[in-house]
């Protein structure tokens, strides 16, 4: 099993979800986060004064998938979240030691 952590543009969330559903991705966790990467921050202007905004709003996805679909999920995720501009975000992939469905006690890929 793999845990895919993706930080993407907020405007891309719906597209990503729609693209991933047919691949058998049966759940994901979404958080509103702030951070910076190559895009850096930006400035906002209030009453003529510039304010430096260091952290840009992003969406963080956490998706646990079985090993056999991981590759296709990653490709689809990358394609659906891509705008070609700086600030599209990053994808991280982690090995998952165990997964447990709390209601039934199922483990492993069955729990996903």
């Amino acid at each position: 099993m793999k845990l895919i952590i993706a930080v993407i543009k907020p405007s891309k969330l719906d597209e990503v979800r729609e693209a991933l559903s047919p691949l058998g991705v049966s759940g994901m966790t979404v958080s509103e986060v702030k951070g910076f990467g190559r895009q850096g921050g930006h400035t906002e202007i209030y009453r003529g004064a510039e304010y430096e905004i260091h952290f840009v709003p992003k969406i963080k996805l956490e998706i646990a998938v079985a090993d056999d679909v991981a590759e296709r999920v990653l490709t689809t995720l990358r394609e659906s979240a891509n705008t070609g501009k700086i600030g599209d975000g990053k994808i991280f992939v982690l090995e998952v030691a165990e997964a447990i469905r709390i209601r039934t006690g199922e483990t492993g890929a069955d729990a996903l």
Partner: protein
Amino acid sequence: MRVVRHSFGLISALTLAVAGFGGDAFAQGVSKISGADTAWVLTATALVLFMTLPGLALFYGGLVRSRSVLSVLMHCCAICCLMSVLWLVVGYSLAFGDGGAANAWIGGFGKAFLAGVGPETASGTIPEVVFFAFQMTFAIITPGLIVGAYVERITFPAVLLFSGLWLLIVYVPVAHWIWGGGWLASMGAMDFAGGLVVHLTAGVSALVIAKMLGARRGFPREVSPPHNPGMVMIGAAMLWVGWYGFNGGSALGANGSAGMAITVTHISAAVASLTWMTIEWVKYGKPSLVGFVTGTIAGLATITPASGFVGPVGAVVLGLMAGVICYILVGLIKQRLKIDDSLDVFAVHGFGGLTGTIMTAFLASPALGGLGFAKEGMTIGSQLYVQIVGALATAALAFVGSIVIVMIVRAMTPLRVSEEDETEGLDITAHGERGYNL
């Protein structure tokens, strides 16, 4: 306000001269309470209170960062109540009571706790207690305006002490000079609803306390932007509506003067909002909401001293000037002089009020579409001189008075919170609450 006092003086003079009655007739002549006038000033009183609670509180609350929003609301609430009590105890008496030999400078203690003022006691064509209440709402909002200078870093005891002393040392004397029959009133100074009494006093004192308190951490580049521009707009809109009572009520009657005051007030606010919006649009490519409503407040403050004296075209002129001048002043104070008058009290209120006061000398002239000068025989030139003297005297008292007050407060309580508390926000550190429990 001065127009009414003027005509009231005329009526009593006529009563005496034409009818030739004695003291009783004089008393009868002046105690003619008008139901219509009373109803309007009662309404206006509620509108002006609404400007502070919750208008100004929300306007300022939205402009600070989320961790200090409650402290700003709390400042406005506490100031409202403290000023009300002080106004009853001695403030009103010193501003509008008879000061005897010293009356040019300050009123007396004769009306402390509203002594001798019953429901039947008249002030012009309204009950004096209504006049008291109307003026009380002005005494509330004026120190409330100064809150914008010291947000996010001042201690709560310092807010209470400063505001209380400021009411008695700065506001009350200036109110007496101009509206209470003091020396500026005798000179014919024109300040319909408080360009000097309210906005210039608050603006100058804001600058002083902001300088003496020091800037917020990270000022000017690293401070947080307004946390809730929507709240800022709601507050500004309430101020706008309440200003109908502020300026329209200052006619102290339900009449054409009140109607004209409200009309020019609205026109000035509209023109100033559009002006500020246009400047930002051209300069930065985007017309912002915070900028727009800042223009609104600038237009309202600028028309305030002129509202009962100028015509609608004068209001357009003042609105344009408000948008341009106050916009420039915001940058000047913060970026050039590096004074963290955090929410631009001086730039918007102080300089707006000053601009309106000076321009009244021109725009009140019937030759320029105005409604005429308060005193017989005045010209644009002589009125301009009086307006400048009034502005200088007001600014001087506010400046020196505020320095003295801050020194007194500093001797009694710490002025500023610790760096740690400032970072954590005043809501939790000073008041034990959070604005947003998410």
